[in-house]
């Protein structure tokens, strides 16, 4: 049996100073606001494994903690507690040249490593596509420039080579090459998401996070971006964490799904099982209202 590339254990995020009531693993509050200290629960006690080549879905209504979770994994948000382990033997240069870092052996809690290693992981190992393009792109810098910038962060040096690769990535994400030198602020929403995807895969990540990437788009544009994601996954075998409130997106892209509510995972299973035989009341409501 293959081993997970990512193991997430008991990850919790409390926004605010927190107290014994809200830090207790068992407590759940409607709306997430702690009655004792007023802190807001983002995520509570989340654990899961992600396997190589796997596409894992995270579904749940707005405010259930999906974005908070992926942002913690991508080091945008610092967890209140919890652990993350990465086990990976491959190219992609993460462990190479990291002083004091023994490699991705699956033994160290990555949240406890230094900021340098986190930055390296962010640049080499992970990729992120946000719902809003302005979070993932500098909208005033050219599309090509955005991608080259990410390669520079991963120690890219040769400008000509990087530009050639940027152009290849834009072609792969179906952006007309003649738009390479225009800033994404002049692009449609669907094109901006494609540039974000091209940028996110610029350094061949092992894991890609996709947070509601099609949520703001027209249905027909949405379909094309989803096609692109399927195609890229098929070609590269990158593991993906696909966050969406839309069960259609989850059905199309994922093999396995976590269902979140009030910051917790209330149910997890094979995606077809979650859709056809949901066990929890919350999931049954979610599935039925999507029909």
């Amino acid at each position, binding site marked *: 049996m293959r081993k997970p590339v990512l193991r997430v254990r008991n990850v919790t995020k409390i926004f605010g100073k927190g107290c014994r009531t809200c830090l207790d693993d068992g407590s759940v509050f409607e709306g997430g606001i702690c009655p004792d200290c007023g802190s807001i629960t983002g995520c509570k006690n989340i654990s899961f494994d992600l396997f190589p080549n796997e596409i894992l879905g995270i579904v749940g209504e707005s405010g259930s903690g999906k974005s908070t979770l992926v942002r913690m994994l991508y080091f945008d948000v610092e967890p209140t507690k919890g652990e993350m382990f990465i086990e990976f033997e491959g190219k992609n240069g993460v462990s190479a040249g990291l002083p004091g870092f023994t490699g991705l052996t699956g033994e160290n809690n990555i949240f406890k490593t230094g900021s340098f290693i986190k930055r390296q992981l962010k640049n080499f190992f992970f990729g992120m596509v946000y719902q809003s393009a302005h979070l993932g792109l500098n909208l005033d810098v050219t599309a090509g420039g955005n991608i080259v910038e990410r390669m520079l962060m991963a120690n890219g040096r040769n400008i000509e080579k990087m530009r050639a690769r940027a152009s290849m990535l834009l072609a792969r994400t179906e952006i007309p090459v003649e738009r390479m030198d225009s800033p994404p602020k002049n692009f449609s929403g669907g094109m901006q998401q494609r540039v974000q995807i091209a940028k996110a895969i610029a350094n061949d990540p092992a894991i890609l996070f996709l947070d509601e990437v099609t949520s703001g788009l027209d249905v027909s544009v949405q379909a094309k971006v989803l096609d692109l994601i399927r195609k890229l996954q098929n070609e590269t075998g990158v593991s993906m964490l696909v966050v969406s409130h839309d069960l259609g997106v989850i059905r199309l892209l994922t093999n396995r799904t976590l269902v979140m509510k009030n910051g917790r995972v209330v149910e997890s299973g094979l995606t077809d099982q979650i859709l056809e035989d949901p*066990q929890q009341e919350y999931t049954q409501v979610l599935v039925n209202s999507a029909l």
Partner: protein
Amino acid sequence: MIKVKDLSKEFIMHILNGKVIEGFKNVSFELEKGRAMGIKGKSGRGKSSILKCIYRTYIPSTGSIMYESSGFGGVDLARADDHTVIEIRKSEMGFITQFLHIIPRVSALDVVAEPLIGAGVERENALKKAAGLLSELGIPERLFDAYPSTFSGGEKQRINIARAVITKPRLLFMDEPTASLDEKSTATALAVLNALKAGGTTMIGAFHDIRLMKQIADVIYDLDEMEA
């Protein structure tokens, strides 16, 4: 190869105040490798639910499903973890569903070749195999590059059959696989399925038509009889 014991499925509908719907009750059977079993029963008796429980689209309520996997050894599919089920599905199982779960904007040829590519076969090769299989099932070549969402019911069903059998699975589930086929395409479909069976595939199928079921099944599991 597969031994099902006291398998039952109840659906607990929390959204209907906890109403319990019975899928099927106390199903037990054993099937040897290379044999085919047909499940017979009136509509609503639980034929589809039995198949889906073994494939784990449904979580069984009671009972065990001991399966002799080539990759994992003996596995109780009723309790196996999700990743084991995903692996076994991918490398050992096929499922001809009653309706095609449309993958939008993917050509017929790609829909059929996809499981083979997923199993590690090189793309050109997989596409060639897919084309051969579609021809065998009587799909005209002009449809190979078209999207199955535009196909007739019978054409969709044959895409579905091709997609499920292309990997030559060890265990094949069939849910009314010929329901929307005319006489001629039913005959070709049965020929394809029987050839697969001759190659060693174990099969469990639900058929609405007993006459057809007898053309492929070695044993029949009769849900109506159990009820009586």
